[in-house]
């Protein structure tokens, strides 16, 4: 069993929807997971599975048409959904931070990096900082993000920097306020493979050194495999499987996880697998039982009507599928 006191963040039965013209998009359905102190977890799944929505809910930056329909987000024991907005902002400035997917849209194009970096440092500090201190700290964070010429970077506009440098600036800014938890939403997806590799290695060395917890969101299974301790597999707004990384990749149980892992073309060759037939169901009218039922080759009658619990199939390895229900 996991020691409750080591849990930094715990999401419990989170339900989030979006109000749109056609009605209510029922996106997150009872999403639960936790992050321990200093732990690296990964959330994988196809696009439009609610990965980013979950993270936005944690950060308190959901879009205006989003509706919280239940659940709790416990951060060090207190529920972020009921704490005051002021407190959440303060957390974002000092404890939790996020690196976004596209480095070019995450920076303001009309301000130099200097201004953006200084502001981040200024507002994340407990006390009022001297100008020289702000500068010193900014330089230190940029160096930490492996940017060798911090002065030149500070004097640049985002468009003067390459994609990899921009993402490093984003990481530097996120580090300023990520004293406990860093959320990385596809940090390397918009970059080339040699750059992604460098960014991921950089992130790993930083979070290991500073003992920060990290949530890595990605649809690139290989990236997650090489990075995290524990993996959650997300499908259509639900967590369908969770477990230690090695276990998930070598012994996946949920039909979705198995099909997802199978559909990745292997470097070793051997042909391209068929992939998963069908599409992620519409959130306007999602299946009432297991949400994977529309694409599942093993579906049973019960799957249409009831949502499976997370069944423990191995040590710390949980699967939300009736195939693994005890006694079946």
């Amino acid at each position, binding site marked *: 069993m996991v020691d409750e006191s080591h849990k930094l963040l715990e999401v419990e039965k989170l339900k989030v929807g979006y109000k749109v013209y056609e009605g209510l998009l029922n996106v997150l359905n009872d999403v639960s997971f936790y992050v321990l102190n200093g732990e690296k977890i990964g959330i994988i799944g*196809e*696009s439009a599975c609610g990965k980013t929505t979950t993270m936005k809910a944690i950060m308190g930056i959901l879009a205006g048409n989003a509706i919280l329909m239940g659940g709790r987000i416990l951060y060090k024991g207190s529920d972020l959904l009921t704490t005051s907005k002021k407190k959440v902002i303060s957390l974002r400035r000092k404890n939790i931070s996020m690196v976004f997917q596209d480095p070019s849209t995450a920076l303001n194009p009309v301000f130099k990096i200097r201004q953006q970096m200084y502001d981040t440092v200024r507002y994340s500090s407990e006390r009022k900082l001297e100008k020289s201190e702000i500068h010193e700290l900014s330089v230190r964070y940029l160096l930490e993000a492996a940017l060798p010429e911090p002065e030149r970077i500070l004097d640049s506009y985002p468009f003067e920097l*390459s*994609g*990899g*440098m921009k993402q490093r600036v984003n990481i530097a800014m996120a580090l300023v306020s990520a004293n406990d938890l860093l959320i990385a939403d596809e940090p390397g997806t918009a970059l*080339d*493979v*040699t*750059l*992604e*590799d*460098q960014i*991921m*290695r950089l992130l790993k060395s930083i979070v290991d050194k500073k003992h920060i917890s990290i949530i890595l969101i990605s*649809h*690139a*299974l*290989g*990236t997650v*495999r*090489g990075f995290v301790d524990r993996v959650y597999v997300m499908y259509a707004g639900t967590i369908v499987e969770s477990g230690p990384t090695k276990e998930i*990749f070598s012994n996946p149980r949920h039909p979705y996880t198995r*099909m*997802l*892992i199978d*559909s*990745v*073309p*292997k*470097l*070793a*060759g*051997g*042909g*391209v*697998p*068929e*992939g*998963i*037939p069908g*599409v992620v169901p519409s959130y306007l009218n999602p299946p009432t039982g297991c949400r994977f039922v529309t694409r599942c080759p093993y579906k049973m009658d019960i799957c249409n009507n009831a949502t499976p619990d997370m069944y423990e199939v191995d040590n710390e390895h949980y699967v939300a599928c009736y195939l693994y229900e005890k006694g079946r």
Partner: protein
Amino acid sequence: MKDTTTLLEVNSIKKYFRTRKGVIKAVDDINFQIEKGEILGLVGESGSGKTTVGNMIMGIFLPTSGEMKYKGENLFMLANKRPKWLKKDIQLVFQNPASSLNPKRTVRQILEVPISVHRPDAPMGRTIHELMNAVDLPSDYVERYPEELGGGEKQLVAIARALATEPSFIILDEPTSALDVSVQGKIINILMKLRRELGLSYLFITHNLSLMSNVADRVAIMYLGKLKEVARTGEFFKNPLHPYTQMLLSSIPVITDEEELLKPQKIKAIGEIAGALNLPKGCSFHPRCPFVMDICNTVDPQLAEVTPGHLCSCHLYSSKSDQISDQKLTSE
């Protein structure tokens, strides 16, 4: 003999773009051939010039210099100057189906245009039905608009549109990069089935080496407008020569231990692709290369055959190429 099997021949083509800040050498003197029925994977990072190559073959713009031949005929002209059979024979599938399909036209209307232009005698209804069949889409989708289709289905419509002219050569410009991995498999398998059944050739432009390992007959690596390595797929992944290729391979995130063993271990990715305006002198890869030598700063290596059919442009092999091929022969 060559004429009967070579479909496309590209000889020292260059494309320089003149900008206010200077000349961008997007494609700088590259050579390759595609045989009939072959899939050539053209792999490179963004900014390496691979899409520019595809656009020149399509005639979207003219190369600055060089020679392009298709089935022995001159291809060095813009699309609007090309004879009709050339336009019919070479087709292109773009990366993002959401922007390459007209949102105001139904699938039927999208498919009708190329058929009526290039195959005026074909019975329209039946031909469209056959096309939808070929890409494994239900026939009743023809009355739908692109926005009513999923990403993978849209790309299948784009493929059907390319097939509508009965081409023998299709340029696939990152056809699955915008799609989820779960739908990628279906698209690729349909493309492979079509090649088998219709004897098509593909120029497969991509940045995904794992995919190429499963799909391509030959792989060409492009970096800053130049080809760095060309080899048959098996040889390419077993015995990558160029340091850049090794860096690419070592950076690929993989999902099994078996694949991990295939990655070159000694080399780690460093640096970033240089700006096309200020190309490094000598070998364009030398600022990132862990094996850089003095000569690399000044002399640009030429693409040369290291072992039969395996071309590489790197000074590590140029002087010793004879020696290496001898070694290979004795070891095999």
